[in-house]
């Protein structure tokens, strides 16, 4: 087959590819990278490039205007090489990511009175073996077993890898060694114990574990001292899979792509990407703490169902297809070598249980962390991200559902949307007399766009000041200079070009408003249907717990004003941050917590929202500001849009 040379400007890297190769693949072969937030479906338009010269065929150009096409633009994920070509890569928005969870090393003390001998399943024992003699001639393995029996460890299994080096290790150690033993797992509650490591001398001081939360957006790792139970350090990083899709659906689609013979499949690539993220974090923690990653013997992993499938390299395809059945909800424990984690190869890796395709181990871990499964008050727990997972219940019962909010709250799918990084507007106020906005920008300086909390705040202000009506229509008849017709329908100019970092107007379009309205309506409808299904009213909810990083920046008042959260007294609302990693931390430390998360996952009743009409009904009624039934939002009803209230007859 003919080979073509593709040159990439500005730096001039080249790739030699066959006819029909996608440009994204050619870019990768040239040693470059290009983001594909939609997973290469040709929908997001973020992988646009300019064809300077040569033969490139565009498979799809739905995101490109005629003017774009005339200027030579193409989407790399939809462009096929058919001859030698020169391609100009665009200077994309610098990937500037700020993670608040990684600002400083924060120590977290064990959240309960931790007693390793009672709670911990992975233990280290310092043993002194009797030196073999002609009279005492049992084999090395039995000799080790005998020594450990003195600590109550019976029936030890020694993996082949350790067996092969057992003799020299014991002799080099002069028969004094530290044995790291996995006593049991949830699959093998009665053992037999398994030897993980054998180190010369007394090494009890460094026995470590990891609590890992694989988020669709962010991966968080706690480094935990298994002797004291303290989380000695923590680190977080964006999930390396983001470049291949911003939401789980895009990732699932990407995972199902078969790679060309020379390249890995989508699934393998995504697995490699998340492992690279986790292993980078582990290396960072080890370096900061001056510890040897080989002394990490246990890792407990939380994450949504898709993330755990990708982490384990299990194809997630059926998760997005009706009837939405995952390959596995509760994967069995495995070793670090099997998982691909850069810690001790025989370390125990323990994925936590999920409930269903869209209620995963991040939620069961979150419930564990909140303790709502042990509490009396009726509690609503929500983890807001791209998906909103909701749990309602108490010690008696637990109901759960998941609603797809779309990525609007993460700043995606919105014209001026961006992640909560430097330059993002995170809060907006509109003057009710002049309709002029003021805003707060992350990191100060000039704004570049709006992040989720900024978007929500803006929507609330537009509604409360009457710039938009309750259906989210801009009131063009107000004659405001900031309201104008745009390419995507009417739009509101938040920041004029002269005040923006990139010299372009920052706007909120009617389409953006519709996206935000749908996102908030989906979540509120989820609350509503869940409550309805057990015959309680949302006003009866005694505690509302909000997890997820979005929750940290959420302004309760604004979230209630737009009807995202039920109108409850503020003292019932608590923000908890990343509950998934906290749950993983608890399960790492305690057998009881590990058993509890399994029990609660089995106890949770999953409500499939697509099974009947009630969700759609609740959704359309929530597709209004704050809600079609204003009596559900008494605190918002008290605020009327000025200018019109007076005219009301």
């Amino acid at each position: 087959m003919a080979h073509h040379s593709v040159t990439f400007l500005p730096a001039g890297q080249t790739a030699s590819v066959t006819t029909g190769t996608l440009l994204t693949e050619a870019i990768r072969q040239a040693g470059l990278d290009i983001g594909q937030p939609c997973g290469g479906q040709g929908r997001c338009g973020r992988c646009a490039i300019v064809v300077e010269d040569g033969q490139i065929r565009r498979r799809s150009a739905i995101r490109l205007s005629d003017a774009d096409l005339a200027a030579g633009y193409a989407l790399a994920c939809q462009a096929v090489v058919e001859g030698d070509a020169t391609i100009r890569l665009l200077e994309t928005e610098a990937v500037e990511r700020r993670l608040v969870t990684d600002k400083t090393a924060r120590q977290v003390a064990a959240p309960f009175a931790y007693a390793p001998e009672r709670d911990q399943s992975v233990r280290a024992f310092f043993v002194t073996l009797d030196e073999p003699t002609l009279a005492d001639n049992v084999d090395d393995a039995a000799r080790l077993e005998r020594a450990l029996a003195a600590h109550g460890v019976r029936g030890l299994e020694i993996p082949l890898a350790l067996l092969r080096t057992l003799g020299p290790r014991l002799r080099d150690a002069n028969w004094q060694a530290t044995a790291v033993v996995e006593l049991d797992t949830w699959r093998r509650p009665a053992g037999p114990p398994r030897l993980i490591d054998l180190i010369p001398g007394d090494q009890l001081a460094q026995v470590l574990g990891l609590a890992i939360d694989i988020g669709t957006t962010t991966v968080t790792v706690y480094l935990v001292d298994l002797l004291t139970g303290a989380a000695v350090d923590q680190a977080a990083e964006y999930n390396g899979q983001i470049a291949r899709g911003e939401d789980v659906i895009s990732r699932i689609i990407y995972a199902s792509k078969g790679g060309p013979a020379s390249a890995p499949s989508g699934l393998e690539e995504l697995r490699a990407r998340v492992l690279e993220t986790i292993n980078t974090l582990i290396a960072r923690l080890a370096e900061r703490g001056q510890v040897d990653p080989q002394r990490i013997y246990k890792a407990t992993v939380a994450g949504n169902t898709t993330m755990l499938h990708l982490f384990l390299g299990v194809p997630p395809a059926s998760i997005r297809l009706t009837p939405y059945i995952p390959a596995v909800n509760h994967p069995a424990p495995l070793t670090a070598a099997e998982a691909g984690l850069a810690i001790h190869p025989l370390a125990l890796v323990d994925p936590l249980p999920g409930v269903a395709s869209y209620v995963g181990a991040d939620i069961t871990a979150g419930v564990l962390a909140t303790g709502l499964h042990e509490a009396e008050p009726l509690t609503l727990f929500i983890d807001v991200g791209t998906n909103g997972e909701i749990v309602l219940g108490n010690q008696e019962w637990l109901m759960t559902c998941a609603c797809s909010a779309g990525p609007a709250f993460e700043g995606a799918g919105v014209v001026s949307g961006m992640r909560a990084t430097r330059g993002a507007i995170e809060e907006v106020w509109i003057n009710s007399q002049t309709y002029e906005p003021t805003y707060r920008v992350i990191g100060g300086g000039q704004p570049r766009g709006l992040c989720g909390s900024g978007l929500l705040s803006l929507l609330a202000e537009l509604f409360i000041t009457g710039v938009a009506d309750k259906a989210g229509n801009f009131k063009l008849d107000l004659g405001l200079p900031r309201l104008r017709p745009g390419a995507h329908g009417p739009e509101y100019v938040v920041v004029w070009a002269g005040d923006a970092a990139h010299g372009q107007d920052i706007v909120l379009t009617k389409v953006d408003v519709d996206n935000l309205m749908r996102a908030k309506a989906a979540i509120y409808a989820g609350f509503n249907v869940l409550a309805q299904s057990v015959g309680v009213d949302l006003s009866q909810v005694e505690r509302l717990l909000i997890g997820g990083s979005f929750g940290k920046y959420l302004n309760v008042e604004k979230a209630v004003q737009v009807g995202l959260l039920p109108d409850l007294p503020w003292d019932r609302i608590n923000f908890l941050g990343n509950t998934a990693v906290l749950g993983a931390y608890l399960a790492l430390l305690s057998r009881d917590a590990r058993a509890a998360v399994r029990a609660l996952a089995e106890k949770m009743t999953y409500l499939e929202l697509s099974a009947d009409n009630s969700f759609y009904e609740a959704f359309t009624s929530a597709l209004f500001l704050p809600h079609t039934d204003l009596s559900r939002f008494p605190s918002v009803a008290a605020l009327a849009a000025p200018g019109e209230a007076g005219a009301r007859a």
Partner: protein
Amino acid sequence: MPVEIPKDKWAGQIRTVTLGATAAEGGTRARTLTVGGEACLPFLHFDAPGAAMPHRPALALEVRDRRPDDWSPLLGQAWGEAMSDPGDWARAAEQAGADLIVLTLSLTQADGSPNLPANAVAVVQKVLGATGLPLAVFGPGQAEKDNELIVPVAEAAKGERLLIGVCEDKNYRTIVAAAMANGHLVSSKTPMDVNLAKQLIILIHDMGMPLDRILMDPTTGALGYGIEYGYSVMERLRLAALQGDSMTQQPMLVTPGEEAWKAKEAKVGEGVPAAWGDWQRRAINWETLTGSALLQTGADIVVLRHPESLARLRTQIAGLMQA
């Protein structure tokens, strides 16, 4: 054995809305039309004897500002030459027994050029002069054109308490503002959904329009073309209204004439199976059955196209009101 009929006691009641204004009220109409006020499900008079349905459902006939290009030939036969002149047509509709004239403005003029505000105003004035009945004037149903034509009509007919529209969720502010400024009523039209119907009433009321000047059109489908969906939306709206949900208590206007005459069964007489029977009989049955089903689910104003359908529904309503 005596049978006791269970009675419902409802918390809510449908609002009463009056269309048209006489000279004493600032208009020129010979009479006005009042609808709504129900305190029961349709025709269940025993729920509140004497007060259950203070106003009988009204029957309207639709006329156009010019002879329509796409109406069934059967309608052409029924109205004859009157269809060529909106004044004559309205007069004929009044003679046929209509309670209300519904004038729909066309998108284009007969020569294909866009309809113009001056033309719309002239037609409305002609119809007002030809009949003493209250009048509804609806735009062609395209947001920009509706606004362009209806605003000058509202101004020219100030004080007549016209019913004007079409108000939809993406385009209601201009028409509502024109109605408020000139003493008219508005029709709030939403696509067969309880929540959307309620939401648009809230939006219109938020602008300051009094609730006794808003009718709602929940959109209907013809017999065989989604009537059960529209029926059930109307039923749920009416139940919500009677249960006390204030923003659903508007009288409902429905358009079975427009819908039924779109159906193949009514519109065409050729190329259909012989077993379908006589065309004219079938066509009028289609409109009448669609309309009578809607009466049973709470319609307050039924807009028809054929005079015979109106006569039949008139008889039916008379019977149902006596029962």
